[in-house]
């Protein structure tokens, strides 16, 4: 723990001096909004740090498809951190398509009104997701091998660390929500989602690559997870579920006829559930990243006024940063739990028998 704190302190101080220097030379002032958005948003390269005016980042593959120029695959380093165009494409720095890849003319300017290419680039979020999925595979295939090799023995090593969590998902999430008879079918999905969210949340807290990416704070990722929950719920429904929606028992008839108020609300609920599910996870993780970043940004804001003020504030900021990181650690587990629990509850509702 002590070691970790020291590392964090050194990291934040060095980040401060490096980036502060960079910004002081490059721009008129430090813009906390841009700074924070840069960190939580997806990007075409994985920025590690900036030394002086030199950006050190991992280039990522750009995959574009358009009717005119077909399939184009190249590394993002060709854009020179968004400063130049390549193969008729560039990253727009301003305008409606800011941050997106747009067609460029010979002078390196955006062609206004042109059709955007289909963008299937392996961005920072996608890369971080690949890393975490690879980790998931590695961890759980190794654990599964232990169960296969030594059946009916006490768990060891990684197995004993993960087994309580797996049992928690089974006994405290799946069985109470879905029921002892039907829970088994949903266990693979619940476990995958739980560990995917948990791992990405935790990796988001780690400030150095391959951590630090905002995977679960990306609406596309959470939307896919929520849609998966929605699809599984919808495909495992029974007659009782639909009856409950279109003709809810125990509701006065005038709420259903002539204006089908209750059915309408219930049907709306079917779609709002996954929507809320995705937004809850996305917003929670994004907010966590924002708060942590804002404490770091405070150092730079005060550092602009006077360097002594910057160092003075950094002590408080780092303390708050540590506190927030601890909180985020808790939130990482809570959000993984909440998402999985709600998914399990929806599956349970879909499979519920008449009372």
């Amino acid at each position, binding site marked *: 723990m002590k070691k970790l704190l020291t590392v964090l302190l050194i990291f934040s101080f060095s980040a401060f001096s490096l980036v502060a220097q960079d910004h002081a030379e490059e721009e008129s002032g430090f813009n906390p909004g841009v700074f924070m*958005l840069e960190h*939580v*948003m*997806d*990007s075409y390269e994985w920025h590690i740090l900036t030394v002086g005016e030199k950006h050190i980042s991992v280039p990522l593959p750009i*995959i574009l498809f358009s009717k005119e120029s077909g399939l184009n695959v190249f590394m993002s380093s060709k854009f020179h951190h968004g400063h130049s165009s390549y193969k008729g494409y560039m990253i727009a720095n301003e305008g409606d398509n800011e*941050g*997106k890849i747009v067609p460029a003319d010979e002078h390196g300017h955006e062609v206004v009104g042109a059709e955007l290419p289909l*963008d*299937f*680039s*392996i*961005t920072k*979020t*996608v890369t971080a*997701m*690949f890393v975490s*999925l690879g980790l*998931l*595979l590695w961890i*759980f*295939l190794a*654990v*599964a091998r232990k*169960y*296969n090799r030594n*059946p*009916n*023995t006490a768990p060891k090593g990684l197995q004993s660390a993960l*087994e309580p969590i*797996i*049992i928690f998902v*089974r006994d405290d999430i799946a069985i109470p929500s879905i029921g002892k008879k039907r829970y*088994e079918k949903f*266990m*693979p*999905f619940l*476990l*995958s989602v739980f560990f*995917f969210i948990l791992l990405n949340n935790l990796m988001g807290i780690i400030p150095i690559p391959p951590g630090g990416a905002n995977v679960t704070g*990306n*609406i*596309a*990722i959470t*939307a*896919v*997870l929520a849609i*998966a929950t929605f699809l599984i719920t919808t495909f495992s429904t029974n007659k009782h579920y639909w009856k409950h929606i279109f003709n809810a028992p125990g509701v006065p008839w005038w709420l259903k006829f002539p204006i089908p108020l209750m059915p309408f609300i219930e049907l709306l609920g079917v779609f709002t559930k996954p929507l809320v599910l995705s937004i809850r996870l996305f917003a929670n993780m*994004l907010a966590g990243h924002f708060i942590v970043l804002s404490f770091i940004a405070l150092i730079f804001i005060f550092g602009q006024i006077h360097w002594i003020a910057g160092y003075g504030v950094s002590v408080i900021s780092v303390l708050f940063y540590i506190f927030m990181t601890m909180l985020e650690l808790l939130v990482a587990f809570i959000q993984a739990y909440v998402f999985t629990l709600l998914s399990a509850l929806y599956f349970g509702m879909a499979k519920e028998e008449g009372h």
Partner: protein
Amino acid sequence: MGLISPAYGTIFWMVLSFGLVFFILAKFAWGPILKGLKGREESIEEALQAAENARKEMAALKADHEKIMTEARAERDVLMVEARKMRDEMLEAARSEAVKEGEKMLENARKLIESEKVSAIGEIKEQISVLSVQVAEKILRKELSDNTKRDALMNDMLKDLKLN
């Protein structure tokens, strides 16, 4: 790259890679893990049940053993009492037999003595009678040699006869 507008590229890669990982994990990780957990729980349950059964069996065996022991003890006591009784009876019988035998022997001795006595007395009587006859003969011979005395005796004897 908006903050709140989902990028279709990310969605595409997410669906593809998460789906792939999900199927691999479902088939090669979650299946074996859940099966392993269930199997282990069942085996622990069985082991506990077996231990409980063994404990019960042991207790039953112990109770049986105890019962057999007490029964054996009671039987032994009964046997001891019986043996003692038998011994006493045998002693008693032997004693009474001995007493009876002694009495019988005494009786025999007594009888023998009696018969000896009787025969001795008989013999004495015979001896006496012979002697008395001899004495009488001698006396008679002496008496009868004298006529007066012989007449007197005759008269005496006749007197006695009359009286009889």
